[in-house]
């Protein structure tokens, strides 16, 4: 459901930066369904990828064969990303706060962490330079937290007003996070810059969403239900993209 919901968000988008993990499968599904003209950009240095198989990593050989361009990482980060050509950057997160600020660096203290997470990779610059950011992640009280342990990728900072002012004065091209897709629902950001429920997946109650959130989650009066996966979406996922279930449970 999470992958299907994320893929649907890409309808109408033109150039998408594909991150490692779940974004990889969501973007490939989108290209085969709602966004056939979607250009896949991989930070490893590929524009216009057409992977014949689902890439396990973001540097798989299948992203090169048949692509439009294979370029150096300098070119990719400087001209494509920083130059403003990326419509959507897709990020994962270990921790996220209500304003969409993300932690993928450490749980605990930086100097002596409880858990050393992978770190930024390209996430930090993607969050700043992609025109908008989608986040896909599993939701629970340990991931949807009141306060993240380390800010790896900036979202709406301390709120929309601060974020708007900061982006303007510092010259960011990106407008920040616009949607967060989890295994429980789809979230967007309200005018104050805070995450709010857009829809909950079939079978997920508002109480369950609240219980899985470390802050006082904003819920609308009537919570729409995410449209269930269609047969074609499931077929593509289970038979074509991920027959071995590497990504999907």
């Amino acid at each position, binding site marked *: 459901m999470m992958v299907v919901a994320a893929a649907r968000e890409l309808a109408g988008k033109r150039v998408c930066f594909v991150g*490692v*993990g779940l974004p*990889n499968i969501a973007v490939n599904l989108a290209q085969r369904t709602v966004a056939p003209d979607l250009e896949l950009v991989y*930070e*490893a*240095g*590929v524009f216009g990828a057409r992977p014949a198989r689902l*890439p*396990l*990593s*973001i*540097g*798989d*050989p299948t992203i*090169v*064969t*048949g692509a439009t361009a*294979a*370029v*150096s*990482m*300098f070119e990719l*980060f*400087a001209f494509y*990303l*920083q130059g403003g050509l990326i419509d959507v950057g897709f990020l994962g997160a270990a921790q996220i706060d209500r304003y969409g600020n993300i932690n993928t*660096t450490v749980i*605990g203290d*930086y100097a*002596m*962490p*409880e*858990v*050393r*997470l*992978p*770190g*930024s*990779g*390209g*996430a*930090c*610059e993607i969050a*700043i*330079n992609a025109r908008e950011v989608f986040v896909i992640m599993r939701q629970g009280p340990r991931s949807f937290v009141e306060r993240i342990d*380390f*800010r*790896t*990728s*900036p979202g709406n*900072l301390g709120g929309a007003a601060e974020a708007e002012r*900061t982006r303007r004065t*510092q*010259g*960011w*091209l990106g407008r920040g996070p616009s949607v967060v897709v989890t295994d429980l629902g789809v979230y967007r950001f309200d005018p104050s810059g805070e995450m709010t429920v857009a829809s909950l997946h079939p079978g997920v109650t508002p109480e369950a969403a609240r219980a899985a959130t470390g802050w006082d989650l904003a819920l609308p009066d009537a919570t729409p239900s995410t449209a269930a996966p269609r047969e074609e979406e499931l077929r593509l996922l289970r038979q074509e993209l991920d027959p071995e279930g*590497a990504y999907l449970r």
Partner: protein
Amino acid sequence: MSPSKVASMRDAIAGLVRDGDTVAIEGFTHLISFAAGHEIIRQGRRDLTLARLTPDLVYDQMVAAGVARKLVFSWLGNPGVGGLHAIRRRVEADATGRPPVPPGLELEEYSHFGMVARYTAGAANLPFFPLRSYFETDLPAANPLIRQMPSPYGEDVVYAVPPLRPDVTIIHAQRASAAGDVQVWGLLGCQKEAAFAAERVIAVVEEVVDESVIRADPNRTLLPGLVVDAVVVEPWGAHPSYVQGHYDRDNAFYRAWDAISRDEARLQAWLREWVHGVDGRAAYVEKLGAERIAALRPGSAPSGSVDYGAYR
């Protein structure tokens, strides 16, 4: 005609990689010289500073083998699988909050673009490289070498990273001439920048080709022999990483590494068997077996060729 730089892996590592060096074995997922990493382990190098964007399994192995005192990086994961546990064990507090078993590992952390920018500054002889990253994050506080600076023109503010000049950069490639002109295709990563930034360069290749092959396609040349100190011919030298057009990434190995890496004793046993227990890459390939090798060969997707034109 230029003299041959072809050397054995043993001689290249012995002559060009020294204790305490800053070593970059570069290749972003593609063209990672595991063979060189293993030879560095076999020769017992110590106190190395290892630089890569993603340490990948090669530095997880080298750190476990005890060659490194420091890691310079931007993403500490097993791509598509999970974490690098040998590295994590050396930087995480244990369950009681005690620091890791000595010797620990010093970390110097950036973002991908930060690392690429560092090599670029190193290659271009610049005192820093500016980029639009790190704003409003905790990375500059964690790494004081990432510094904010004003533009000399107008009101803009950017972040600067210092140059990275490895003592030795090691790359893997499809082919090179004996004089060291290196050609690649597929993901380019930041091999070029890391090589031009380095004091010494080792190019490990699937095959040596005649100079005429290089000169027939100058757009494909990554590095001129001018910056290469040794050319090592080591087919399958990138396994479990891959070489575009030659062999696939051994994703099964990357997945299997997760369990091996989580268990220190098991990891050490793996090193004894697959690194210390073989005398070089040829023996490693033989140990992998013909069946596994055959399964990693891709289909064919030739690029066609272009005509540069003969101008007289």
